[in-house]
């Protein structure tokens, strides 16, 4: 190999020169490229507006300039409004999501997602990020009013009627609602032309959803459970269908109407537009090619999604409902909450639903006036209830916690308020029962047990746990064998859980109980819970507005492998209440049952209910009318608006 020094030097110089030339070339063509991009954009804009006009002409509605929000459904508006006053209609007029009169239209909301959505098959994908997008892009038949969660308000459906035996739901949907066109498709290719044709939402699409849930090949584990008692769905006409249940269950109402149609015109086809074979339809649906398009009928439509970068939504021009102020929403993909906070401070995003706890302490609690961004008006914040609660679950089938006095003693020994104030910086409120702590189902007369070690000692003595050998640890004869009160708490490996467990451990040591925290990762935790291989565990349940205690508290669930009643709670009266709640439709009676159930659990302490967490929502002051809903999704950006003039006091 020739290895002359000069050759090497020349080669290096040549490479450098080439690189330089490339850069110069880029610089020269830059302005031309920009012009091309701008032109392309204009052409796209022109195309889409001319299409919209053509579509309206097709629909036979006169084209009105400017205010086009009402679209084709204008003619039926009166009918929909009148339907809300019909006595049989379960839906009431909405009072929420009001747009203030001073709201400015337009602007971009810069939000974030923790991961790129894995696909937009609304039925099989139920990760948080996908459902965030779904709420913006798609609509359900009816939804709970955010300001009054016990009433149902119309969305796609304008009328829902139920037969007197609560078995048949008849749902009438709006006419003239069109599916959004898939984004990111190359329509210049004639093979894709069929994707662009307008498709009206019909009861076929609605029925398709229920049919797929019943299809044994479809992988929709979580949702399928709800539909176990559903019998069938019947199409009555183009805009009306009927969902029929096998037996009367209270949850059937929510399950039926808090659902959404699926675009049958695309999910029953393969990529070329040919019909899928019915015998493999379900399997194909699980990984359907069209899942990469977010197809809905909602207020926004997805215009661009780049993996790991961002997802961009724009207002759906064909939306049938109100025109919401924000024009576009750009979700950046940010995995790390800490990084999201940096982005908020750097004015790269507008909203952060949960400030990291240490930042809350440093930048809000301990910050001096004028220094931190929250004190000088650069950012705003508010405490938001998280729809969840945390608890310690006691294995009632184990040797320690079958006695309710022991469980009660464990609750007395847990310094709940102290831990909330000192470990969690006050971001939580004591939980006393299994529902959301502000929900009417909670009996207001139930007061939390105080932190009282003396009381705990007495209860343990009563239960027969005494320190007989003077080693500082209580013991008891169980089945003729002396057992020391040494147990482990299996917990999900999270810093704040570890720190409050160490507080608890110290308190338990004072009353003669040795507790060992055992932090494990999630799969191990899941396995241990499934196998009931724990003395006690720390856990959390996410909550929703509707409460069906069956899955967690019914005794039958304690004997189902992998059931949610992991602690083995078996109580006759509780079973009766739960079964009654499943078929009772009278709200007053339900409330009574709920209250009794709450009192019963409080008395039995199968869990030591710990706290309902709170988080800090933070946002830029340019976001106005920052309404926070009582129920999930609490940060629903529809009524917000952007004040482009109000810049933060940021000097960048």
């Amino acid at each position, binding site marked *: *190999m020739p*290895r002359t*020094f000069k050759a090497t030097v020349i080669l290096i110089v040549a490479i450098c020169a080439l690189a330089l030339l490339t850069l110069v070339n*880029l610089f020269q*063509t*830059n302005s031309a*490229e*920009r012009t091309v991009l701008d032109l392309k954009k204009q052409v796209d804009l022109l195309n889409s507006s001319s299409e919209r006009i053509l579509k309206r002409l097709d629909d036979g509605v006169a084209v009105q300039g400017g205010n086009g929000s009402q679209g084709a459904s204008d003619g039926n508006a009166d009918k929909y409004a009148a339907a809300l006053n019909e006595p049989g209609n379960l839906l009431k007029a909405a009072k929420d999501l009001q747009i203030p009169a001073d709201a400015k239209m337009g602007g971009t909301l810069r939000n974030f997602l923790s991961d790129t959505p894995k*696909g937009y098959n609304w039925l099989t994908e139920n990760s948080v990020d996908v459902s965030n997008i779904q709420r913006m892009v798609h609509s359900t038949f009816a939804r709970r009013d955010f300001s009054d969660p016990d009433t149902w308000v119309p969305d796609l459906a304008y009328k829902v009627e139920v037969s007197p035996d609560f078995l048949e739901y008849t749902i009438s949907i709006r006419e003239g609602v069109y599916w959004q066109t898939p984004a990111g498709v190359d329509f210049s290719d004639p093979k894709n032309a069929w994707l662009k044709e307008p498709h009206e939402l019909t009861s076929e699409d609605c029925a398709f959803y229920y049919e797929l849930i019943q299809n*044994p090949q479809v992988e*929709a*584990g*979580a949702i*399928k*459970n709800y539909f176990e008692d559903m019998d069938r769905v019947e199409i009555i006409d183009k805009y009306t269908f009927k969902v029929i249940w096998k037996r009367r269950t209270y949850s059937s109402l929510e399950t039926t109407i808090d659902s959404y149609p699926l675009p049958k015109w695309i999910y029953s086809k*393969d990529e070329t537009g040919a019909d899928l*074979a*019915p*015998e493999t339809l379900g*399997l*194909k649906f*699980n*990984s359907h090619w069209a899942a990469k398009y977010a197809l809905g009928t909602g207020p926004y439509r997805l215009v661009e999604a*780049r*993996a*790991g*970068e*961002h997802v*961009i939504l724009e207002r759906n021009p064909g939306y049938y409902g109100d025109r919401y102020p924000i024009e576009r929403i*750009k979700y*950046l993909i*940010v995995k*790390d909450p800490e*990084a999201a906070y*940096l*982005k908020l*401070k*750097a*004015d*790269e995003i507008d909203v952060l639903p949960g400030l990291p706890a240490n930042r809350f302490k440093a930048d809000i609690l301990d910050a001096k006036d004028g220094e931190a961004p929250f004190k000088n008006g650069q950012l705003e914040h508010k405490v938001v209830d998280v729809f*969840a*609660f*945390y608890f310690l679950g006691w294995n009632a089938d184990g040797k320690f916690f079958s006695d309710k006095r022991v469980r009660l003693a464990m609750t007395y020994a847990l310094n709940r308020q102290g831990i909330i104030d000192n470990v969690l910086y006050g971001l939580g409120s004591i939980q006393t029962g299994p529902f959301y702590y502000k929900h009417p189902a909670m009996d207001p007369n139930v007061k939390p047990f105080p932190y009282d070690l003396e009381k705990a000692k007495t209860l343990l003595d009563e239960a027969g746990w005494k320190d007989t050998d003077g080693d500082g640890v209580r013991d008891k004869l169980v089945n003729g064998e002396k057992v020391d009160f040494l147990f482990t708490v299996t917990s*999900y490996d999270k810093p704040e859980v570890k720190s409050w467990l160490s507080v608890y451990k110290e308190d338990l040591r004072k009353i003669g109980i040795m507790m060992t925290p055992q932090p494990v990762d999630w*799969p*191990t935790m899941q396995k241990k819970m*499934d*196998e009931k291989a724990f003395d006690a565990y720390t*856990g*959390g*349940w*996410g909550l*929703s507005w509707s409460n069906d205690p069956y*899955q967690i508290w019914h005794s039958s669930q304690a*004997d189902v*492998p*992998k059931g*949610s009643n992991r602690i083995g709670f078996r109580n006759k009266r509780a079973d009766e209440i739960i079964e009654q709640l499943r078929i009772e439709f009278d709200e007053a009676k339900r409330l009574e049952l709920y209250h009794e159930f709450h009192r019963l659990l409080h008395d039995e302490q199968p869990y030591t209910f710990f706290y309902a967490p709170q988080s800090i929502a933070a946002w830029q002051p340019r976001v106005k009318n920052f309404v926070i809903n009582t129920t999930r999704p609490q940060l629903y950006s529809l009524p917000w608006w952007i004040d482009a003039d109000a810049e933060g006091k*940021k000097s*960048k």
Partner: protein
Amino acid sequence: MATYIIKRIMLMFPTLFLISVIIFLVLNLAPGKPTSSSVTAEGTQDSKSSEARESYRIFKEQFNFDKPVMFNTRFLLTRADVFEELRVLGDFARPTCTAANTPVNCLNADQKPKSGRVIEAQDVIEDWGTYVVPQLVEIAQTDTRVDIRKLAINRLSVNAKRRLLNEYGKSQTPEQRVFNREVAAENELISAWTASDQVTMPEIETLMAEKWTPWFASHGDRWNWDMGDKASMMFFDTRFSKYWGNLARFDFGVSHIDKRPVLDKIMERLPYTLTLNFLAIFFAYLFSIPIGVWSAYKQNSPADRVVTAVLLAFYSLPSFFVGLLLLNWFADGDPYGLFPTGGFAGQLPAWYGESPASTADMTTMDYLVSASYHLLLPVFCMTYGGIASLSRYARTGLLDTIRADFIRTARAKGLSETMVIVKHAVRNGMIPVLTLLGTMLPALIGGSVVIEYVFNIPGMGLFMFESIFARDYNAIMGVLLISTVLTLFGLLASDISYAIVDPRISFD
């Protein structure tokens, strides 16, 4: 030389195969299973997302998790094996005897099988699939316990279902369609032949006589296997052979998480990692060689010591920590907002112009500026550690040659000092440093989990990290196999480069 290279490449195949077997076994035998259940960021679960058996079965079937890992001996299962699993399930469902009340057919608490065992029995018998149909039929026909017969019948209605042909493929041939239609019809039929919870012995007898016994009589020959069938089952109806069967067609499979092809997902992330790591390696070499040469030349001078100390200090600083500090100081506007807080591209520096809504609206030039703006901090974090170690290599390499005889000769020849160092000493002294480059090839695509997480760059490191947590076997296998191949080639390249750069080394 050519013989050597060919020999090395031939050796790569068995090496690669062995490595992949090891990875495959470790992955599949590691505790934990891929499931759909997940936990939210707050560590809470929704009570709704409990597992639905049938969905999970379909999931297992699609990804061959119902198959044994390496060898399939299910054709050897006997009635007793199947009975034992059914007994566990049956006993678990029986009521518990207590002192106060002893329901019919009760079992003492200590005799009841443990939950872990029940879950296992459920999985085991489900995974056995069609292999145990004859045993199940026999149990359902002749067993003495009603509950066991009931379980056997209900199991049959699931296990006797046959799989469709090429059901996940893009399209099926007409013959496959015909077969699939027939199988789907049969599956639907038998899935209804179940027994209710309160079934009685006579009812079971009728159900068997009317449905299952005639069905088995007419289809029983499906289970008459000869030696050839058994051998092919043993070796080919396994996860390993299914995986390799696909791999032979360069099909890495689809990810469990979003059912997208693994290769697509890798290709989506590769550009980010490649750019980042290429720049990091490039700059590490660009700076470390001059530093190394300079400090070797000034060996043991105070300046050399200071540089050594500073580089050692840099080397000791963990990059994720430095990354966070840099972000906190220079990115969030408190005190400085000089850089974006992460990401690969998207924002433009203020002096350049306004950032467009999406990178799609950027010209190539804009994109280049934006990417460099975003990558400055992460590349710095990845580079400074490398500079420290590489410059030490360079220093040692040069020190080894600088005392060699040919350097003295060069000086004696009257060459200028620069010429001596740059032309004669450096070229020979840098051989070890250059050959290190070969081993860095896999690092190019491996990615750095920490840096990618801190700077929010959607690269391979993060992909691997997430896949491991989600137990996404296909994705992990895909990434590991690609980086194995690259490592093998990297090692080969580094060996060859030795021979090219240093004529004293020869492989012939």
